């Protein structure tokens, strides 16, 4: 039997009927057409599928769509504001914080949470904060640099 899920995605109210087993990542990608969150693994380890749920970075492959009922979800598509890129998106661009880009939406949304908690996060704190996100291209160097730079800008 399908379930009804009412949630807010990138500021827009959505009302959908889903199979109880449907994962949040599949709801976003297949039903709502938001393909920014990528699926990189089947064991909840890569973080490519990360989105913000009520402001917290969550792996959308570890949640059922029904668990998002009543929640406010932000995906990478909804992060940029009226005035252009979010400072973290901008910092990734400025610091060559991505190569193939597959991990990038998850990295950026995780960074939102890291800097929310501590805008002055050090290199080591950022590295620790990224423990749930894998990148195979950048060796992390420029991802860390991007996030630290975005934090410094926000707190300046």
């Amino acid at each position, binding site marked *: 039997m399908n379930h009804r899920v009412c949630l807010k995605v990138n500021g827009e109210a959505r009302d959908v009927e889903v199979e109880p087993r449907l994962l949040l990542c599949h709801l976003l990608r297949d039903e709502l057409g938001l*393909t920014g969150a990528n*699926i990189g693994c089947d064991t909840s380890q890569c973080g*490519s599928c990360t989105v913000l749920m009520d402001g917290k970075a969550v792996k959308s492959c570890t949640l059922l769509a029904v668990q998002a009922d009543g929640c406010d979800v932000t995906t990478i598509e909804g992060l940029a504001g009226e005035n252009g890129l979010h400072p973290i998106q901008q910092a990734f661009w400025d610091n*060559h914080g991505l190569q*193939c880009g597959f991990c990038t939406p998850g990295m950026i949304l995780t960074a939102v949470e890291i800097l929310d908690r501590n805008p002055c996060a050090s290199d080591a704190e950022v590295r620790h904060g990224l423990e749930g996100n894998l990148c195979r291209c950048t060796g992390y160097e420029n991802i860390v640099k991007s996030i630290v730079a975005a934090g410094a800008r926000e707190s300046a």
Partner: protein
Amino acid sequence: MAIRTQTIGDPVRRREDPRLVTGQALYTADIPLSGALHLALVRSPYPHADVVGIEADDAAAMPGVRGVFTGADILPTLKAPFPVASSPSGGAFEGLQLPGSGPIADRRVRMVGDPVVAVVAETPQQAADAAAAVWVDYRDRPGAGDCRAALADGAEAIYDAVPGNRAFRWDLPANREPDPAPVVVAQDFRIQRLIPMAMEPRTVAARPDGDRITLWTSTQSAHRVRSSVAKILGVARERIRCVAPEVGGGFGAKANLYPEEVLVPWLTLRFGAPVRWAATRTEDFQTTSHGRNLFARLEVRADESGRVRHADLAMQFDCGAWFSRPGPTTPSLTGTMIVGPYDIATAAARAEGAFTTTAPNEPYRGSGRPEATYLIERMLDILAGRLGLDPVEIRRRNLIPGHRFPYRTATGLTYDSGEYERALDLALEAGDYAGLRVEQARRRAGGGKPLGIGVACYVEICGFGPWEAGGVTVEPDGSVTVRSGTSPHGQGHETAWAQIAGEQLGVDPARVSVLHGDTDECPRGIGTFGSRSAPVGGAAVFTNAETVREQAKRLAASLLEAAPEDIRFAEGRFFVAGSRARAVGWTELAAYAASEESPDDAGDALTSDTDFRPPSETFPFGAHLCAVEIEPETGEPRILRYISVDDCGRVINPLLAEGQVHGGLAQGISQALFENAAYDADGTFLTGSLLEYAIPRADMLPAYELRRTVTPTPINPLGAKGIGEAATIGSTPAVVNAVVDALRPWGVEHLDTPLTPEKIWRAMNESQAQGEESESD
């Protein structure tokens, strides 16, 4: 405002990034395909078995299921063997066996993950459910988890046509009789199997488009996929448009042809509807090619001063269950690169390859050069230890001096250009090598965590031909289009090629659009692998842009009513020498070229699409320095400093080059310390997910310190050598040399990778020598 006419070498931010940081980029899984069907594959859980029965009626009757297909349905319809078999050109491969196994099992499975049944349904979930309901009856056969088991007497034949499982022999005899040398050192090495693991699992989609099909695939080589798939399906090449859209990493493993790249378009033709397949991470680990994975024995002969005179390498190479490309290249590359950056008078190498019941073992970032570099660099440290020499000193005594280029190696290659010792000096200076040695001596004498210092010099080969495309056209509005035969999976070709064309034509790179990865848009191409994009594909853009500039000069001469030799070019404008005021730019020239008045001989004016054919390969080089500290209680190694000096010739965009070095370092360090793809003796796969396979996280890797020297290559007019693989190659031996150096007081001379804490701890606790007995250098 003056136009920047020099853009090659600028750290330009990537034009690719805005779409990627906002989630607008479309990977193959993201391409909107209305009404798409979904493919799920029933795969073998056994390494080696006969398929004696398939029961799929229940699955076929499940909701949403549109079809269930086995090898019996698919294989008889195919028009060419899979994979497309042909012997590798050149090289002394003997008895190379290329048994075609088909893109789906024909009553026999040869590795965990071999596809057996294809299930097509309306949603991915329905397809997966139905695949789980298919019942396959297997009769188990003995398997072989590595090449030694496969080559052992009495081993079960994996292909009936290949008794003994030997896939090939390769032999590079000594260039001449080696001179006698008093010091002989030999060492056995086991280089582990690695999983390249692009973050994007392989994904394939196809859609009928009139009487053609469009095939999207997560590949490094859309043109090669198109030709192979056309042959196998028996359709004209023109009927297939192959697109590599956004590709989420490749590292060599996506340069091959895979079964799903045949099955998905086959199903699309069958259903007349779009079909998509996306690998799960486990499927990807099971079936996407692995790399490295070599047994090797290296012997060197040297004189007492440490000058190496001869190198002899014997290899056993694991081919996996099938070749996913025309044949092996890694063993011959390992063999021909075994002398590294050193002046070694004679060398010999040989390899034998075996089929095993494991995933195909193919080129992975560096293919052959990481193996060769690791072997010779480890060996130099072992030799230095035996002779009581500093590792830096032994390298200095053997490095090819700058005045010897072009340098012909004992293995028959010609190194283009190099200043090897300069790179080494820079690494030592940047890392304060002398200071590190002082600190090490202090710790060894007075206690403190064991400190190890590792140095590795490398040279690699890239820029493989035979050709690459990079057409350049000035459009009627004066903008520029580049049609690239190589396509990126993270490297930033769009940005870099625009810089090249921009500089050559004096056009703002923002006015240059770069097309790639689409066989309709870019008629010819080979692909991105072996660090060939810049030295071959980039060189094609460079030379074609130059041709267009010459064409423009002729047009300008006609327009300005002057002789072509009087036309000058600066900042994107053409003028008659001495009268700069009357200059014409690209917009006027493009309009003129398209107009009636333009001279007849300018028919194809302002466009050039000649492939670049490099006369030879390029040889980037560098030197790496690593300082590592061992936690005595746990054996855990921690990298304190990592200095990477890389010379890739002329740099197109330092931001991108540095990014390539960072990523390469991560993978090379990870080979040294973390990763290991494991099969048991029979071929049961033990590392099928990220729970078992150690991809490093951010907090497992150090910060990198980068330096660069620039020694352009004479091989192409761009002067670029290639940078995609370099840092992977230098880093594994630098890290291993550092760890082994830290363990010298325990009498350790060599440990095989990965150097896990357990392995290090055992070396410290199970050896006879005592760490407290310090030794002086």
